[in-house]
């Protein structure tokens, strides 16, 4: 049951948004899909005085657009819309694959990647893919707009670099090099579940490799040393083993209801190997997404 004292605020423009955020301070939470914050409020895990609905703000009424040398995806674009967009699928196939593993149809029809990013769960599925694409977060406040690389934006479990009276306007993804990739998610059931461990791999046509690991550390991360070892050496079994070992060493999982830390450590290798193999086979199919 949601506390009856909760206020609902519906700003229609950014000025009204910032006024509301100032009025309620840290106990005023912005939301779009509400699929994380409402669960937290209902379970008493969030101390919220007001919910500020972003969905009618006129300046945020876009899905995505080209900007600079890449695209920006609005904080209001639903996960379903991202999965179904043919251009986003073509340009950012790993992100679309990852986002498609989140929750269920019902959750994806409401949820957004801005929400997934700001909730900053260590197990969030969009984060490894966004890291592969070297995404950045566009944050707006009364003083204007700033862009924060995702790796810096994610501070820790449930913590981001957002300051008071700031909100994520969009997520920026630079235009990637020609590539193929894969996102592999291990969960307890083949259905609606949080990731136990996840791994993303991107094989770039210049021979470099980008890797990302989720749900095996306080934040999703890119194992940079592992990436360097495998660059240009995807055919070499020794290099692959060394790469996987380095990535595993970089993981710092916890034990929780879904798995033990030992199991997660072991699965980092398994999942990354799968992701790399899938990415390579998709690349072999013409550097192309469809497989």
């Amino acid at each position, binding site marked *: *049951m*949601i*506390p*009856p*004292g*909760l*206020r*609902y605020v*519906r700003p229609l423009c950014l000025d009204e948004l910032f006024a509301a955020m100032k009025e309620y301070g840290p106990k005023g939470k912005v939301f779009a899909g*509400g*699929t994380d914050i*409402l*669960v937290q409020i*209902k*379970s008493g895990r969030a101390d919220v005085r007001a*919910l500020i*609905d972003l*969905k009618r703000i006129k300046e945020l009424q876009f899905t995505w657009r080209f900007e600079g040398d890449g695209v920006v995806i609005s904080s209001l674009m639903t996960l*379903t819309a991202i999965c179904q967009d043919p251009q986003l699928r073509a340009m950012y196939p790993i992100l679309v694959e990852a986002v498609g593993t989140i*929750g*269920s*149809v*019902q*959750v994806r*029809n*409401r949820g957004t990647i801005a929400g997934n990013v700001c909730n900053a769960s260590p197990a969030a599925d969009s984060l490894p893919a966004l890291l592969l694409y070297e995404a950045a977060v566009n944050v707006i406040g009364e003083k204007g707009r700033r862009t924060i690389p995702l790796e810096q934006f994610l501070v820790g479990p449930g913590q981001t670099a957002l300051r008071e009276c700031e909100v994520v306007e969009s997520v920026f993804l630079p235009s990637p090099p020609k590539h193929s990739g894969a996102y592999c998610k291990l969960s307890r059931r083949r*259905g*609606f579940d949080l990731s136990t461990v996840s791994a993303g791999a991107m094989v770039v046509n210049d021979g470099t490799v980008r890797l990302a690991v989720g749900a095996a550390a306080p934040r999703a991360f890119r194992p940079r040393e592992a990436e360097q070892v495998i660059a240009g050496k995807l055919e070499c079994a020794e290099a692959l083993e060394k790469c996987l070992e380095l990535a595993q060493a970089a993981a710092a999982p916890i034990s929780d209801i879904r798995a033990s830390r030992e199991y997660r450590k072991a699965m980092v290798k398994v999942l990354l190997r799968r992701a790399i193999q899938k990415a390579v086979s998709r690349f072999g199919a013409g550097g192309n997404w469809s497989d």
Partner: protein
Amino acid sequence: MIEGQQIPIVVTVNGVMHQLAVSSNETLAQMLRDTLGLTGTKESCGKGECGACTVLLNGVAVNSCLVLAAEVDGCEVLTIEGLSKDGSLDPLQQAFIREGAIQCGFCTPGMIMAAKALLLKNPRPTRQEVAEALVGNICRCTGYESILRAVMSCVEESSNNTQEHGRECWNEDH
């Protein structure tokens, strides 16, 4: 229940427009059940994991336990009650009965609404696509086989009978 901030909304439910004052802490599920008396929509987990509360909001399936009533101002909602027309059941409802896909019946409204949402977008899904569309709906009784059969039987029906296919689009008559 009627305490705290009241928000005026206009919402169309099953083709009928309502002007309501909803509480700030009221969910769509509560509004449908307690204010409008549409108790076909069930609440089970209350946190968007079981899908029992699934309704269509502007044509897409959502967990109504995670939507605030205040959010649906200006929106269209379709519940299980909105599927049957003039006392005759939607082909999906008939299929569930025919295939024995209803045991305790608690998951059924949400399951049918999720299936309906799929068929509105994709009238000829594969069995795998049906299973994926129903990932967010839990059934503790049937083991899902009869449910998948029921939905697939509607897919076959619509490809054999173009008149039935017309009824899939609930928007037409509202």
